[in-house]
Every structure is written in C-alpha cells, then in structure tokens.
C-alpha cells in the first residue's frame, strides 16, 4: 500500500519534491478525509510528533540540488524529507552514463541499498518502487540504472516503475543521446514499466496551455508532478470499487504492461491551464473525453493542435481492404489504455469511445485492453480531470529520433572514448542499439 520513491539525479530530485508537494496540497483539499488518509499512508509516514515524512530516498552525486530540495520541502510546513534519507557525494558524474553506471554506482551501492531497505521495511506493504530520473545526464541515468539493477536483484517480487524524462530534442547535453540509449536499453530489461515524459511536450504545455512567458525548470517540473500525481493518488479501480485501491502500481501494471516486449507508457492529462483561467472555465465530461480520445488516436500530447482528421478505421471494410490499409497513416494503435477520471459527477462520464476495438491490437480483446479508474474527489484544483496512461505507438517517433541521432554520433565514434575509459565498450553500445531497434520494431509491427 505504500510506494517507496527513489529520486535520482538533479531532475529526479526536483521532480520528486514537486510531486510530493502536489500530493500534499491535493490531499489537504476540502471534503476528502478518506482520500487524505489513503494518500498519506501511501506516500508519507508519520513520526512520533505527527509530522509527515516522505517515503523517499534522495540520491545525487552533488550536494547542491539535494540540499535545495530538502529546504523547499520543509518550507511547505506540511511535510519533510527524512533526516537520513539523502545520499550525496562531492563530485558529479559529468553527464557521463559510464561514469555513473560503472564508477559511482558500484562504489555507493551499499549505502543507497541500505537507505532503500530502511524505507521498504518501514512499509506495512510495499505497493512498489517508483524511481524518477532523467536519461540525459550522468547521475540520474547511469547511477539510476545501476541502482535499478541492484533493486531488481534484491526485490525480485516487487514492482518497479521507472519514470524517465527524455531531454529536449534540441539538446541540453551533447552526449544526451548516448546516455538515453544506454539507459533505456538497460532499463527495459530491469523495470516492469517505463513511464515517459518528454521535456519538449511539457514545455509546449507550459507555453501554449498555461501561458507562462518565461518558462523555468520548476514550471516544467510542476506540470510533470501534476501528471504523475493524477496517476498515483488514490482512486477506485475495477478490483476495488468501494474503497480506495490498495495496490495501485500492481493494478496499473497488470492492466498495461503484461507483455514483456511492450513496456513504454505515455501520459496524457487534460485539462491543463493556468490557475487564473481555471477560475473561468467549466468542464464537461463528454468534451474532455472526446478530446482525450482524439489525442490518443492522433498521438497528440496536448489539447492544442490536435489533428482531427485522423480517425480510427471503421469496423466494416469495403471491398476486402485489410484493416491496416484502411487505417490512417498517422493512426496510433494502442496495446492497452488506462483512463483515470477524477472530479465531480464522474459516474456520468461515458467512456464507450475508448472501448472501440479499432483502437487496439486485434489479438487482445477490449476487456483486457481498457480499464478505468475513477475518484469523486476533485484533483489539484481542477473540478474535472482525465488522465490517460497508455501503452501505444506514440513514443515511437521520439524514440526513433533519439536512436537515429545517437547512431549518427556513434558511426563517427564521437565522444565514445569518454565512455570506454570508464569501462563501457563499443560492444555495449552496439548491444544497446540492438535492444532499442528491437523495441522499435516490436512497436512498429503492433
């Protein structure tokens, strides 16, 4: 019932802090006693003084970010991080995956494992391990992958959900594509599901939907935290319709990532708008769901700029055309979808649009592919909000871009010596490329 989270690297730590803030703020809203109880049990534990402490372990190779994050957390007054839940070193990883994976990871594995074990033992029941990292840097990706590997060995029967942030396409770090390729190929084998956020998408949400003029990292992190919290906060599921689900991560996984080859999950959350416009907006479920469905089909990530020409193939094909031919070429085929509805009158929402078998792969019938969670509690100030967690082809394009760029660099062996000097050989690179090509191929031929 409790989620132990692991914040890795700069990005992971910042997102984690925002996530706990959002969760705490949301739980402290009006009229939600049981919701708050469940959510507190899930993410925090109470000390003897009645203070809420996050069930979280913070790991970074630099002390700066962690100290800042801890200070921000205590500023809220409602929750803090554990005193001994942080692990940091003096020198960073230099944006080098090999440095994180081969040097820092093994060196500090015992210390980090002890921290995680303490958190896990504190839980009555472990719902799962939730890690947050970015794949572009050195610590989050390299150390994060190593720690995930160790945790997988130590807790083989626990669920591990990795939240990864993909970097801006235009590149913050020059070797980000190498780091991404190496992390993703390793994580795919180790974790149960990989929940992906792209900086590009979130940035667009911030600029277009939320009308933020000067977008800072904390704005981006707030949006990501909002989306994550909408998934992780308590909800009624199909298995537990009368009380809040006690196995959120397990249920999420058993509805979405049962097939070992398909583990990439994407998140869509609507509505997203600035708090000033929120006061003036009214939402209706049919409108929200219609938009969300079209976003799913057209692989749109935000509510603006949806391509309405894309449509699902009709059930009746004319003149013996095969279903694949009649499908629009940008149509996004899903393997499985999870719809989470939060807010007022949630029982009136009509979700049949998502049960259309044309949206899904033919070999899985709809009761296996589609599930719904709901919660009557309004989430984070939005009267009604809908989140779609989806295992589909929409991540193919960005993944392809990453792999292509990484391969172009690798073909000329640019910067490879930075990795080989720490012990990652060219064979390891090739293995990673092969693994990712395999993933791309599986998703393409869905």
């Amino acid at each position, binding site marked *: *019932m409790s989620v132990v989270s692991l914040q890795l690297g700069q990005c992971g730590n910042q997102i984690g802090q925002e996530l706990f803030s959002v969760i705490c703020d949301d739980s402290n809203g009006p009229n939600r006693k049981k919701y708050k109880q469940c959510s507190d049990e899930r993410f925090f534990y109470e000390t003897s003084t009645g203070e809420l402490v996050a069930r979280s372990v913070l790991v970074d190779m630099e002390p700066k970010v962690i100290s800042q994050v801890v200070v921000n957390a205590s500023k809220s007054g409602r929750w803090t991080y554990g005193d001994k839940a942080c692990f940091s070193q003096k020198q960073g990883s230099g944006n080098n995956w090999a440095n994180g994976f081969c040097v820092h990871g093994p060196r500090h594995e015992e210390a980090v494992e002890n921290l995680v074990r303490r958190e896990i033992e504190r839980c*009555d*029941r*472990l*719902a799962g391990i939730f890690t947050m990292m970015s794949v572009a840097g050195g610590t989050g990706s390299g150390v994060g992958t190593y720690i995930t590997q160790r945790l997988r060995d130590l807790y083989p*029967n*626990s*669920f591990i959900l990795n939240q990864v942030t993909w970097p801006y396409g235009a590149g913050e770090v020059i070797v980000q594509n190498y780091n991404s390729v190496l992390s993703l190929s390793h994580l795919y084998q180790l974790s*149960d599901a990989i929940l992906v956020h792209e900086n590009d998408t979130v940035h667009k949400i911030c600029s277009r939907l939320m009308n933020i003029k000067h977008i800072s990292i904390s704005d981006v992190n707030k949006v990501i935290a909002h989306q994550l919290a909408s998934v992780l906060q308590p909800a009624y599921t199909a298995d537990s319709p009368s009380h809040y689900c006690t*196995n959120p991560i*397990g*249920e999420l*996984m*058993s509805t979405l*990532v*049962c*097939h*070992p*080859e398909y583990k990439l999950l994407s998140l869509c959350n609507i509505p997203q708008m600035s708090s000033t416009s929120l006061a003036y907006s009214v939402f209706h479920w049919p409108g929200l769901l219609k938009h969300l469905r079209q976003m799913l089909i057209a692989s749109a990530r935000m509510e603006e700029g949806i391509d309405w020409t894309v449509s699902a193939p009709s059930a009746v094909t004319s003149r013996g055309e095969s279903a694949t031919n009649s499908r629009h070429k940008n149509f996004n085929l899903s393997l499985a979808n999870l719809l989470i509805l939060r807010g007022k009158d949630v029982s009136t929402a009509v979700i049949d649009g998502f049960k259309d078998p044309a949206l899904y*792969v*033919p*070999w*899985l019938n709809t009761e*296996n592919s589609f599930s719904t969670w709901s919660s009557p509690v309004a989430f984070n100030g939005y009267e009604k909000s809908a989140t779609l967690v989806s295992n589909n082809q929409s991540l193919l394009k960005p993944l392809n871009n990453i792999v292509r760029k990484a391969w172009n660099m690798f073909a000329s062996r640019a910067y490879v010596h930075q990795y080989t000097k720490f012990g990652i050989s060219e064979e390891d690179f090739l293995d990673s490329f092969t693994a990712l090509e*395999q993933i791309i*191929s599986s998703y393409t*031929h869905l």
Partner: protein
Amino acid sequence: MQREKSVKVKEVITSLCKLLSALSVESIPTAEAFRRAKFNRKDAALDMWSLLSRLLQRAFALDCACQDSKDQDFDMQLLFVRSALCYCGYGAPWVLGPQPPSHIKEVGSRDLLLAFGWVLSTGKLLDFLLTEKVYQLDTLSSGPAIAKSVIPGQLDIESHGPGVDTTVKKDQVLQALQWQYGKLRLHWKSLLSAQEEKSRFTHRVISNISTSADCQPHVTGSHHSNMTSTALDKELERIQALNGILEAYLDWKLHEHLFWCWMDSVIDSSLTDVSEVEPVDWPPGERAVMMRCPHGDETRRAVRRLDKMLLRLQTELRAIRTEQSTLTLTSQGGRQGASGLSESQRMEVEKKVSGYLEGLRLTNTSAITSGGFLPCLQDPQPTKPPHRFHTGEPGLAVTAGKLQASVALDELREREAVLQWQLERLRQNIREEMQRQASTMEGMVLIPPIKR
C-alpha cells in the same frame, strides 16, 4: 563392532522410513522388515510389496491412471510393478525374464528390496515426492512450475518466461498468451506482497493477544482469539509439517551413504545365493545389480555396431592406401615420390603413430595410473570389487576414485611396454645420429660400445 554396525544400520533405515512417512507414503515397513528382507525371509515380502507398489503408483500417478492397490487383485499389481520397474530400467529376471512369476509370493523379499534400492538410487523419486509435498503445503510456492515426472528420459515441462521474440511476423495467439501469462505473473506478485502484509499483521495480532491474554481473559476476546487461532493453527500445522519434512530429509542425507553400504551387503548376499549362470559377455566390474538392464543392452548393441562400422572403414582405408601406393609406384616407376613409401617405412610410421596414440590414450584415460595413487584396502568386503550407487546413469564401469589392483597392474604393464619401445627407438635414433656425425668428420673413427 557387529552390534554397533547393526544398530547404526537400524538408525539409518529408520531415518529413511521417517522421511518417507513425512512425504505421506503409506504403510512403510519397519527397519526390522528391511533387515528380514535382506535375508530373503518370506514374512517381509508382503511389506516390501506394498511399499514398492505404493511408491511406484505415486511416481507414475501423473502418467497413468492407476487404480488403488487395495482393490486390485494381486495379478494386476504384479503386472503394474513389473512394467513400472522395466520402464525405470531395472532388469531383474523376475521383471524381464521369459518366465515371469505367476504369483506375487514367488518374488522373494530380497529381490523386492533390491528393486526398491534401484528406484531410490535414481534420485528422482525422492525429489519428485518432495516437490509434490512442498507444493501441497506451501501456499505460495515458487511460480507456476509443473512437478517433474520420475520417469527417466522424459522431457521436463519447465515453465520458462516468454522470451523476446525476434521474428517480425508474430503469431497473434502467442502474443495474447504472453499477455495473459504476464498478467498472471503480475497478479501473483501482488498476492505475494498481500501475503507478506497479512503475515506481518497476524504477527502483530498474535503478539498483542499473547500479551493481553494473561491479564484479561475476556469472553469476547477469547472468542475472537479462537477465530483467529483456528486459521493460525492451520498455518502452524502446515509450517510444522514442512519443518518435519525438512528435518527428515536432512537426517536422511546424513545417513544416506551408510544405507548404500548396507545395500551393497544385500547385493553380496544375493550374489552368493545366485545359482544361475551369468551371461558370458558380462564384463567384470559391471554395475552392481548384476542383472542386465535393457537400456544397457541397447547401448551395448549400438557400441558393437559402431565397432563394426569402424573396422569396416579402417579396412577400406587400408585397401585404398595400398592401392594408392601401388598405383604411384607403378605409375612413377622407380621414382620415390613423397607419397610413395616402401612397405618397411610404412610399418615404421604406423608403429610410431600407434605408439604416440597409445601414449596419449594411457595418459588421458586413467588419472590414477598417470598421477600418483595410494594403495588402500578395499572396504567393506575384501573379496568383492567395491562399487557404489551413483545418482548418475547406470552402466558406468568407473567408480569414484577407486580402481582394482589387477586392472591397475594391467594398465601399468601396457604403459611400460609402450615406454620401453619408445625408449628403444630413441636409443636407435641417437646411435644413428652419432654414427652419421662421426662419418662426416675426417680422421675420426667411432667405435661403438660392445652390445650387451
């Protein structure tokens, strides 16, 4: 000494009986019955029969619909036991022979004991019974594994997770199956964590009950504790049963080798009583049971076939070679090319090659003769060759680290002969070399030493 030994044997057999009863095998004979069976007493026969037939029924339960032995008449039971033993590879004359015993009573208890020993020695029976029992008792035993059958050579239907399929064109049914399997695994993980939580809570409840039970024996409280205690009692019983099995198994493992020593003595006593003529092509030092194994027969036949094939190939090769050499000699007239060798030279070469091969073979076959070895007295009976039951396949002639003295002597003599021949050849070479050198040097005459 004898008294101590027999007491030890009784302990050992008792531990085996305890293990079998912990594994829910019914009607296990006492250690005394085993001892009587060794001496082929009539009264032990029935006990041994029931043990053997029950064990075999359990072992083959997965594969054939066996009826309960109580209702079966003895003929059916006899037929079942014989066919089961034959399938396991046991080839006693009463199992395989042309005149099978028509009635159960004709089979002596010692034969039954030997058959039981054979079945036990394969090792798979105990493993199978253990996994079956543990699967029953342990509520969340590891994964969806199917209990392996005891029949040797049968493919184990192991549960392996779905691997990464590299073919692009995928079977849709396979995909759906992989999905369902993954779902099942995820549900199982959820159940496991729920189980752990439950045990943690019950531990807390129990500790609270036990602390409060002394101070406040409330009526409602005890009722509640009764309710919880029945479930807990069942859990406790299960764990105690598992514990009992574990202890019995460990105890058995400690004493197992003594059991096999005792079985050796059973075999020896049966050998002294055996009056029938043993088959002629029976190599000495063969596997302990001294009866032919049908599998062994097959392998022997295969080996003979291979031998014949090899011989045929060798003669053909020789024929071709002689043809070639005569052809080259006749075609090239007097020219002695590299391919043409005279008869004596060829013999020389062949002998050299065979010598090298011999040397190689001897150094590689027996580490005992090439390395050092310690002579030791054979135990327990000095007159019979020592042999041990292995959990490996039957039919192996080499035993773990022991070699009979006569065999070792033969090997050493062969080796000596080869080495002597090599030594002689080397001496010859050196002599020729010296003579050649001496003849090249002017003014030097070599007088070879007088041959002794």
